[in-house]
């Protein structure tokens, strides 16, 4: 059983890594088809340089993991790229268009949608309404058209169907009419991610989407993320769960103290002594070995 799994996921990783196959594993390396390109993005808080990214590219249609020790600046980088914070300096472009100085909602509209590490459930709205809110380009979201239901009812129906579909995958369908404020910590994470997917973004940026999510569910969701990639979505996600990173990512970027310190395929990065030293820690392998021992 484990063998099958292992090869299956390996195969998936292999195919997707196709375009990235020849790319050198070094920080700031250019990608064959970069959708997001950032240059010289910096942000300081007081004396602390939280983000200092000289150059970073994210491959279109691939799943890229962003890892790094706590406080490395991953979330701050997300905030900067998506317009939730202003950098001290820097330029970046998404899908060929510069995004520097754009406001958060404009960034989202251009197709780059993010989730939050500390979840933001819309408490006094139902789970389903949370989801529906995620859909982009709704006619009824303009005041005047909103007043005339026939103009948006059809679209609403489609969105609801899609929302229910996603909720089912995220095991939240039973809760769809509950207020989102009554969800448990993990369920909020799930909702956060599902809502972002409602927007059908070109690129989704997930900030630790699976922290606190039950492993069994995580696994099935990873399958869904892979499907999304097959449909052409680009995924950039922050994660501390190395098993997960290893399982689905095509490319891994490592940050440390605000900088990109390493890049490469999952295997190459996790073998990088610098990364092990700064991030993974020496115990990591032991525990992993422990676990496989336990299984066999």
């Amino acid at each position, binding site marked *: 059983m484990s063998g099958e799994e292992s090869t299956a996921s390996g195969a998936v990783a292999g195919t997707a890594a196709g375009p990235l196959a020849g790319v050198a594993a070094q920080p700031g390396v250019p990608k064959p088809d970069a959708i997001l390109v950032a240059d010289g993005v910096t942000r300081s808080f007081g004396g602390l340089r939280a983000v200092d990214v000289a150059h970073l590219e994210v491959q279109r249609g691939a799943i890229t993991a962003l890892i790094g020790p706590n406080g490395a600046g991953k979330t701050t980088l997300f905030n900067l790229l*998506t317009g*939730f914070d202003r950098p001290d300096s820097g330029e970046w472009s998404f899908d060929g268009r510069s995004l520097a100085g754009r406001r*958060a*909602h404009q960034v*989202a*509209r251009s197709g780059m*949608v*993010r*989730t*939050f590490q500390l979840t*933001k*459930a*819309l*408490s*006094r*709205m139902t789970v389903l*309404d*949370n989801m*529906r*809110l*995620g859909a*982009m380009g*709704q*006619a*009824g*979201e*303009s*005041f005047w*058209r*909103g*007043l*005339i*239901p026939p103009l*948006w009812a059809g679209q*609403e129906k489609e969105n609801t169907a899609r929302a229910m579909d996603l909720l089912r995958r995220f095991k939240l369908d039973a809760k769809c009419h509950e*207020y989102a*404020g*009554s969800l448990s910590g993990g369920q909020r994470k799930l909702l956060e991610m599902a*809502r*972002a997917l*409602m*927007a059908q973004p070109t690129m989704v940026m997930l900030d630790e989407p699976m922290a606190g999510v039950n492993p069994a569910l995580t696994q099935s969701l990873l399958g869904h993320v892979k499907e999304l990639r097959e449909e052409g979505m680009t995924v950039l996600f922050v994660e501390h769960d190395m098993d997960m990173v290893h399982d689905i990512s095509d490319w891994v970027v490592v940050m440390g103290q605000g900088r990109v310190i390493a890049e490469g395929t999952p295997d190459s990065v996790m073998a990088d002594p610098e990364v092990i030293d700064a991030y993974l820690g020496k115990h990591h392998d032991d525990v992993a070995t422990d676990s496989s021992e336990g299984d066999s």
Partner: protein
Amino acid sequence: MDFLQILSSALQQALGPTMLAYAICAIGLNIHFGYAGLLNFGQAGFAAVAAYGLAISVAYLGLSFWLSLLIGLAGAVVLALLLGVPTLRLRADYLAIVTIAAAEIIRRLGRSTTFSDYTGGSDGTRPIGSFNDSFVALNPFPQGWSLDLGIIRFTRADAWVMLVGWALVAFCLLVMFLAMRSPWGRVLKGIREDEEAVRSLGKNVFSYKMQALVLGGLFGALGGFVFALARDNVQPDTFSTELTFYCYVMLILGGAARLFGPLLGAMLFWFLYNFLVGTLNDLAGLQVLPTWLLTTTKSGPLVYVLMGLGMVLLLIYRPQGILGDKRELSLDVR
């Protein structure tokens, strides 16, 4: 003690023009606070600007009634923009204090002697002239007619104001109904809960908040018109913060974020108030209670004491308001 009399005058106020003016203002607040989570404590300011806009345009500038109505509405829109542009990016509490301050500034400027040539000063616009002639002229009810509803009666003039007032209430509620169950309303509710989250989904939060502020402000303006037309006078002190406070009370009593909440709250509020006034004044007249407790001159304060207590008790035992949903309150949204 004449209970029928007390009941009828309480009912009269629960249906009459003042209630309508408050209800319309409160419906506006429902958009702001109930749906969009904007803590607007300056609804009185919107009503005041519109009422002054109307009164000054007609009585001082001599413009036509209809044009002046538009000017009043435009005044409310401009106020919303002025307040919104700087504050809608801030935390909700700041909007509260800025709006309360703005409303007070408007009221104090209105009553100051400095501008009394235009505003008429503290007695209202009466000195600069009447402005509701065109409105009165439109009164469809025949001279000498009065609206007789069994135990309550309204004069012809009041009936006309009420016809318009109830039509406006219906109109506002219809707009609310349509707007709030549309995706537009959903975005507003989302903003109420967490604007960053909504922003991350590609909605222009600022623009939505502004739309909500303007729409609610326009409703406030309509309320202001009802106030002004019912009295043919714009008295600055009727637009004090008390007006806004009472609107909040009505909103919460009826149930925030419920379509009929503010209307029901306003009716209940004025009914209770006038019921208490009638009962206490009658009791005072009968001299059945000891004089340390109740005399004619003490019944005024006592009405408010009881009114305050009544509000408190209602809210304690029905915190979600009459129409509200209890489930919402169990969520901690601090």
